[in-house]
C-alpha cells in the first residue's frame, strides 16, 4: 500500500547533461517498491508549480531504507528538484502504480531504454539478475553526454549494456531500435521491457508484433492525483466487446502496460 511521507535527501549528484541521481531516505516506500512503480514528489512548498511530479523508482537499498531516483531536468519541477541539497526534505508518495510482470526463470530478457527511460529498467534488471534471468540492456541517447548511466554505464550494473547514440558519439550510430531488431532477428530473446520516448516505444511495439514476442512498456502521461481518482492520466488501450478502445489510467492500471494492449493513435500524448 502506498504512503505519503516526508523524505530526506541523502545524496544528490549530477550524472549527465541535466541528469541527476538522488538518494532519498524513505524506508516505508523502499521496503515495498517493485520494479516499474513510481513515486509522486512535491518539488516545492509553493502553489506554483502546483502539482507533484512522477518519477520512476530507479532502485532501492532496503537495508539503508533508501530510494534511488534518476531524472532529467525538463521544466520547473525538475529544476527545483535539481536545486535541492542533501538534508532537504520532500513530500513523497509511493510506491504507486503497477510494476512489471516478472518472467519465468531463465527466460532471456531485453531491456530497451530511451534516454532517461532507463530509470525504471535498471531496478528491473537488478531484480531479474537476482532471479537468474539473462539480461541485456539496450540504451539509446542523443549523444555520449546524454547517457544517464555514464559513459561506461555497464560498469555499475550487473548485466550487459549496449549503447546507441543518435550522433554516433558512443556505441552504435543510430536508433536503439536498430539494436533491438538485430537482437530479435538473432532470436536471443523471450521478453522485452521498454521505457522511453513515444517514437521508440511505437517502433518497439511494431518489432514485437512482427516477431510475435511479448513485451511490457512503462508509459508517461500528465498526472493529477497519482492514485487513480481523477482520470487525468489516461492512455488509449484496446477495448473489449463493442468498445473499440478504452482509456486506462497510467497511474494505477499502469505505468506498465502490455505492448499489445496499447493503441497507437494518440498524437497528443506526451509519450506514446
Amino acid at each position, binding site marked *: 500500500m502506498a504512503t505519503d511521507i516526508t523524505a530526506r535527501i541523502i545524496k544528490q549528484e549530477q550524472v549527465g547533461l541535466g541528469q541527476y541521481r538522488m538518494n532519498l531516505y524513505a524506508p516505508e516506500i523502499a521496503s515495498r517498491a517493485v520494479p516499474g512503480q513510481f513515486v509522486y514528489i512535491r518539488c516545492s512548498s509553493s502553489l506554483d508549480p*502546483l502539482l507533484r511530479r512522477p518519477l520512476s523508482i530507479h532502485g532501492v537499498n532496503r537495508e539503508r531504507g533508501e530510494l534511488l531516483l534518476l531524472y532529467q531536468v525538463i521544466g520547473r519541477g525538475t529544476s527545483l528538484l535539481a536545486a535541492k541539497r542533501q538534508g532537504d526534505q520532500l513530500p513523497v508518495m509511493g510506491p504507486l502504480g503497477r510494476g512489471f510482470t516478472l518472467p519465468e526463470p531463465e527466460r532471456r530478457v531485453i531491456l530497451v531504454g530511451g534516454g532517461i527511460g532507463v530509470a525504471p529498467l535498471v531496478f528491473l534488471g537488478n531484480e531479474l539478475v537476482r532471479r537468474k534471468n539473462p539480461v541485456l540492456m539496450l540504451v539509446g541517447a542523443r549523444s555520449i553526454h546524454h547517457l544517464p548511466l555514464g559513459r561506461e554505464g555497464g560498469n555499475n550494473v550487473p548485466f550487459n549494456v549496449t549503447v546507441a547514440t543518435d550522433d554516433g558519439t558512443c556505441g552504435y550510430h543510430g536508433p536503439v531500435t536498430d539494436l533491438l531488431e538485430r537482437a530479435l532477428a538473432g532470436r536471443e530473446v523471450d521478453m522485452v521491457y521498454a521505457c522511453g520516448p513515444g517514437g521508440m516505444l511505437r517502433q518497439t511495439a511494431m518489432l514485437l508484433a512482427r516477431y510475435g514476442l511479448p513485451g511490457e512498456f512503462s508509459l508517461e502521461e500528465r*498526472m493529477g*492525483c497519482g492514485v*487513480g481518482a*481523477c482520470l487525468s492520466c489516461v*492512455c488509449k488501450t484496446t477495448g473489449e466487446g463493442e468498445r473499440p478502445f478504452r*482509456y486506462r489510467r497510467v497511474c494505477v492500471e499502469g505505468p506498465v502496460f502490455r505492448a499489445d494492449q496499447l493503441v497507437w493513435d494518440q498524437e497528443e500524448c506526451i509519450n506514446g
Partner: protein
Amino acid sequence: MAKPSLAVDVAGIRMKNPVTTASGTFGFGSEYAPFVDLNRLGAIVVKGTTLNPRPGNPPPRIVETPAGILNSIGLQNPGVEHFIEAALPYLRQFDLPVIVNIAGDTVEEYAALAARLNGVPGVAALEVNISCPNVKKGGLAFGADPGSAAAVVQEVKSATRLPVVVKLSPNVTSIVQVAEAVVKAGADALSMINTLLGMVIDIRRRRPVLANVMGGLSGPAIRPVAVRAVWQVYRALKVPIVGMGGIVTAGDALEFIMAGATAVAVGTANFINPRATLDIIEGIERFLEEEGIKDIRELIGAAHR
C-alpha cells in the same frame, strides 16, 4: 474545555464536520483510502455519474497553470449501474454520507438518473452538475441559463426524495440569478463553484495543450472568484451552500464558511496533499479552539456581520 462542535446539516445531510470532497477529484473514495480514514470525512461527493458509461475525452486531459490546473476529463465514468453495483457497496462500510454527482445530456437523462438513485441504500443526496465545461451537450449549457437550469432541477426534484444539491458554474454574468432560479425550482442546497473555462497553448507546437482545446480551471488560482460567488449568493438567498474552489488549508475553508458556506469541498488540493481533507478538518478544529468558538455554525456567514 470541551472540543468545539464541527457538525453541520446541509439540507438534511448530516455531516460530522463541514469537510467533503469535490466531485471528480476523489474518485469513489477507495483511491484515497490508503491516506485518509474515510470515516473522518463530513461526507464524500463521488465522481460525476451518467446514465450510460462514458469514455471521456482524449488525452492530454490535464495541464498545470499558475496556482491551478486545467482539466478536460469529459465525465469518463462507468455509468450509474456500475456505480451502484461496484462502487457503492464499498462506501457503505463507512459512517459517511455519500453524495452522488449526476450529469446528463438532456433533462430526461438527469431525471432518469435521479429516479434510479432514489431509494438506493447508502445514497445520502444528489449533487446535480449543471456546470461541467467539458462535455459538448448539456453540462455547462444547462448551468449558463437560469431557465434551463431550473428545468433540470424541477425534473430531478420530482424524480427523487433525496436532498438535491445543485452545483453552479462561475461562467455566468450573474450567479445569483441562476441560484435564485434553481432554488425556486426546488434545490435544497447549492454547491459552488465548478471550474472556470480556460485554455493553455503550447507555443512550440502552436496548438492547445489539451486535446479537447478548452478545460476547466480549478485550484488556488480561482479561490477569490469562488469566495465571491458564495458571498453573493449567501447575501441574496437563504439556502445552505457547499463552498469550493481552491481550498488548500483550513484557513481557506474558513474563508468560505465566513463568506456563507455551511460546508466546504476539497478538490484539487487532494492532488498535492492526499491528506488535505483531514489536515483541513484538524486545522478548523484548532482555529475554533484558538478563537474560543464552541460551534462551527457560529462562523457561517460571519464576514457579513
